[in-house]
């Protein structure tokens, strides 16, 4: 039964050139889990917002949207608020009140329900989502993942029939994001809740969803099960690069049924290699294929040090526990160095210490041989870009922002043209990141510190960002990146470090680093483990598979 029907929907924003949506027709059945994919600016948010009447943007609209057979405009106000739940991207800003319990009750208060009903619904929702332990806490003290879960719970407490989510995990770390997606799956399975979700991080969503809608420049490109859609995206690298690693490998090698998860990817790869062996009448089992006898590259830094921590201890307040516990780490000049690790492992703190924002109480930190206390901000030695990139903007247009910082646009390794008259807050996440980068580069630092630069970026933008980092590195800059994104680190880093409880527990080149890790590694590595050595990116995996095929007999290969 169709719960949601969209017929010939077109939409254009006032004073905008083209159409944001063009002739979109689709429908969603009750209980379906649908993923909405597409690059930034493809119209995902516009479509989702048009489905929720209260959030529909102003502009010119044609076509019809039916929810349960009724056009959205004709739903009564309270029914519209209740039936369609909407969860947004920003965990902090979409919460309204100061306490967890009040946030949960907020929607029900708006509907004017009596106290006893609110009490029961809030209680059962809180226990379902496991938020009893922090029920009376203040919202400001919650982690990002908890805030987003609370936002979901306070929508679910109103018992919606369809749940719309606009990039809900883009601001979360990977573990919180998986938890969130698992919760969505549980809601979908337990209550047959209809879910329509737009997302950049598709690795975990694609295997769950029944159907994916692919939008491109406002047009609906595909609407089908992921296994059928992904092979058809083969010639569109900008869309394909957002898909799960297994699916990308399968699509590149022309799999009949597209694998979606790491497990399916492994099975499929085993069969594929086995078949290759049979075709080339090779006696060796596929497991032996593509073994490489190269010794691990030296884990030590290559050049003179740019940044050197020696036995650094730090805590935020005298009475609080240590955050950095004897951190020792050396980053060589000209390196692109990635710091990985879980929440609270001290990654961001280490960056703050290196930037001179925080002062360690013990140990030594040297930047290009100079002690950190002698390094003055703005003398071209070290500059940092914080995680929340909005905090670096002070002006009303991009142009003023650049002039204020003294940036010469022609000296930048990327183009900000076309954005000059926009407000920094109106830019997309990727554009904001670039503007922030431009401001940092104005001080022409030799050491650049970046905190989670890929947070909330779509896969294609991320590829562009990696290119820019490489260019900066080629111009002689040392770059240290703190990130949760293992795929990003595998693709761009010269060396990676894993932080755990305030110290760097392992350091190495990505190929060694990730193939020695079992859990903390990329999907491509987990998938090819045992078949190939030292493969950490999908690109490597594809190259190795193709290499095997070309060589004919895989065991003679390398």
């Amino acid at each position, binding site marked *: 039964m169709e719960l949601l029907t969209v017929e010939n929907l077109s939409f254009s924003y006032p004073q905008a050139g083209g159409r944001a949506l063009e002739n979109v027709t689709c429908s969603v059945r009750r209980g379906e889990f649908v993923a909405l994919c597409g690059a930034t600016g493809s119209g995902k948010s516009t479509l989702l917002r048009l489905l929720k009447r209260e959030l529909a943007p102003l502009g010119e609209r044609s076509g019809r949207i039916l929810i349960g057979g009724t056009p959205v405009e004709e739903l009564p106000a309270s029914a519209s608020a209740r039936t369609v739940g909407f969860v947004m991207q920003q965990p*902090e800003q979409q919460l309204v009140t100061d306490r967890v*319990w009040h946030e949960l009750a907020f929607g029900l208060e*708006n*509907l004017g329900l009596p106290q006893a009903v609110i009490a029961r619904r809030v209680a059962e929702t809180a226990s379902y989502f496991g938020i009893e332990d922090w029920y009376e806490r203040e919202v400001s003290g919650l982690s990002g993942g908890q805030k987003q879960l609370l936002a979901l719970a306070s929508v679910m407490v109103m018992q919606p029939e369809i749940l719309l989510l606009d990039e809900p995990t883009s601001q979360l770390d990977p573990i919180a994001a998986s938890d969130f997606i698992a919760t969505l799956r549980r809601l979908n399975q337990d209550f047959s809740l209809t879910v329509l979700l737009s997302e950049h991080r598709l690795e975990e969503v694609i295997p769950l969803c029944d159907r994916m809608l692919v939008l491109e420049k406002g047009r609906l490109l595909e609407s089908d099960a992921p296994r059928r859609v992904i092979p058809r995206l083969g010639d569109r690298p900008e869309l394909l690069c957002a898909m799960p690693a297994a699916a990308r490998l399968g699509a590149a090698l022309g799999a009949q049924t597209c694998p979606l998860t790491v497990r399916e990817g492994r099975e499929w790869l085993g069969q594929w290699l086995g078949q290759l062996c049979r075709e080339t009448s090779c006696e060796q089992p596929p497991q032996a294929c593509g073994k490489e006898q190269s010794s691990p590259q030296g884990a030590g830094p290559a050049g003179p040090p740019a940044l050197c921590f020696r036995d650094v201890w730090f805590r935020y307040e005298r009475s609080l526990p240590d955050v950095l516990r004897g951190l020792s780490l050396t980053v060589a000049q000209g390196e692109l160095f990635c710091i990985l690790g879980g929440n609270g492992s001290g990654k961001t703190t280490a960056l703050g210490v290196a930037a001179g924002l925080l002062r360690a109480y013990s140990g030594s930190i040297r930047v290009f041989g100079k002690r950190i206390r002698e390094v003055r*901000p703005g003398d071209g030695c070290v*500059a940092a870009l914080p995680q929340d990139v909005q*905090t*670096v903007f002070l002006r009303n247009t991009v142009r003023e922002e650049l002039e204020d910082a003294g940036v010469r646009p022609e000296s930048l390794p990327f183009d900000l043209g076309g954005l000059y008259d926009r407000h920094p807050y109106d830019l997309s996440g990727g554009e904001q990141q670039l503007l922030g980068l431009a401001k940092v580069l104005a001080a022409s630092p030799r050491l650049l510190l970046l905190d989670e630069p890929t947070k909330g970026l779509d896969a294609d933008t991320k590829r562009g960002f990696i290119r820019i980092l490489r260019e900066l590195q080629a111009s002689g800059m040392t770059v240290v990146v703190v990130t949760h994104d293992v795929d990003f680190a595998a693709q761009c880093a010269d060396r990676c470090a894993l932080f755990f409880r305030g110290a760097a527990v392992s350091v190495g080149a990505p190929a060694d680093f990730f193939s020695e890790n079992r859990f903390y590694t990329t999907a491509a590595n987990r998938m090819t483990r045992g078949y190939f050595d030292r493969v950490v990116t999908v690109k490597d995996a594809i190259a190795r598979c193709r290499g095997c095929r070309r060589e004919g007999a895989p065991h003679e290969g390398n």
Partner: protein
Amino acid sequence: MYSLSECNPAVAAVCLLSAAGIAMFCMNPVILALSLAGAVCFFLVRNGAGGGKSHLFFCLLFAVLALVNPLVSHNGVTVLFVLNHRPVTLEALLYGMAAAAAVVSALYWFRSFSQLMTGDRLLYLFGRLSPRLALVLSMAFRFVPLFSRQAKKIRQAQRALGRLREGNIAETFRGNVRVFSILLTWALENGIVTADSMAARGYGVGRRTQFSVFRFRRGDAVLLALTLLFFGGACVSLACGALDMVYYPALVFPECTPLALAGYLCYGLLAFLPSLAQGWEVLRWSCLRSRI
């Protein structure tokens, strides 16, 4: 009977405000001494030996307030000594001490009041007046710390970029003005998201109700009844003039009539009621815990 931190916020507010209120409108030394003792006792019961700095501040404030009056006011008939050709009188000194006791005890009461009345409790109190006001308060409680955190983050980000120069005052001032102006933009920008989130959850659809986690239990009723009883007794005694004290030109202490004694008793009980409630709960809890 529950301790004030456990009981219904309305009851706690009535209890503290009535104890502080009487002390603010009465210059009777006994009442003021009781108020000061009760307020300090309750503060100590709640905070233990901590808060040494605030005690020191209150002591200094008491001394200053008590000494300023005899230095500027020269009314009164009992001259203690002459300073700079001006008489310093006993009456003025006592009046100063009484006024200081009133101020300091009120400050202690309100200290405890602000500790007890966290955001959600105030919300419960004022939300009774209007669910809309309740929401505005709740949002305000959230936004103020949110802004100060964001301001701190912006300042740090500027420092990390090497952009915020902390040289002379003019530059620091200009930097702060700029941070403040972008903070306003940020607030509006975030306000849009919050407003969207509110609209999405049906804000403004109809008449709002108010949900709260506080209930009115039997122990609350007991505490409220006791508070009102003691407050009423003290008020009657006060209204009949049994507690009136005259400072100028000469000291006239109130007579020890039964009505005055009843007034002292009632106020004494009222001033120590918060501490007693706390003590009662500790006692009850240790008794209950022994059975676990």
